[in-house]
């Protein structure tokens, strides 16, 4: 009898799908810019889990893992730029609520 739960590709894919769904909900429901950024990071991590799992269980090539490393760096750079922009917005309006950015419309 197998005493150990067998973790396979599907488990990772389900985890990634859950992360993606959680991230998508966060991105669409949050009005706070920081909250949206958190949702973005969740989706990026979902992509990373997918990439690494496919790389491990699929071809055996490491291109998926290398891509994951690039994604980590891109996510950090994006977060840094986004936070700097949010900070600037906060300095102007004293809020990071995206709905308050309503001066530009039409």
């Amino acid at each position, binding site marked *: 009898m*197998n005493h150990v*739960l067998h973790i396979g590709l599907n488990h990772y894919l389900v985890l990634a799908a859950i992360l993606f769904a959680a991230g998508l909900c966060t991105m669409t429901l949050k009005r706070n810019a920081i909250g949206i950024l958190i949702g973005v990071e969740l989706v990026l991590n979902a992509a990373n889990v997918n990439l690494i799992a496919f790389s491990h269980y699929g071809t055996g090539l490491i291109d998926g893992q*290398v891509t994951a490393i690039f994604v980590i760096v891109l996510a*950090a750079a994006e977060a840094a730029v986004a936070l*700097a922009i949010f900070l600037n917005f906060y300095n102007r309006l004293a809020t990071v609520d995206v709905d308050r950015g309503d001066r530009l419309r039409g």
Partner: protein
Amino acid sequence: MTWAVMGITLFVLLGVAFVLGSLLAGKLIRPSIPHPQKGEIYECGEPTVGDSRIQFDLRFYVVALVFVIFDVEVALLYPWARVYLQNARTAFVDLLFFFGVLLVGFAYLWRFGYLDWVRSSAGQQRGGQTSGDEDIAA
């Protein structure tokens, strides 16, 4: 249900029972003498100063952002280190370029006062920067 799942369930149940059991035992055994001082926040014996939900100084963000950028670049070094011994000379030259470009950015930050806690007026004259985020905080 597999053995593994049964084992995990048993472990979780025992763990919860142990925690609740000790709390319940403490509740029954200890004397009850309430005192307002006992309800205060315990912070190494010192009385607390102000609210814990304060806004951090904006200067932290600038330094933190710079830190994050340089910190995460290390992730790109992992594949580099992985293939280093296969092709040391090329890899070494590659890395010199990689760090060279990063260093130019770092030198710029340093020279024009983005790393200073309080940006010096000399740095502003040298760089001629306008009101960055850190100036508002200062």
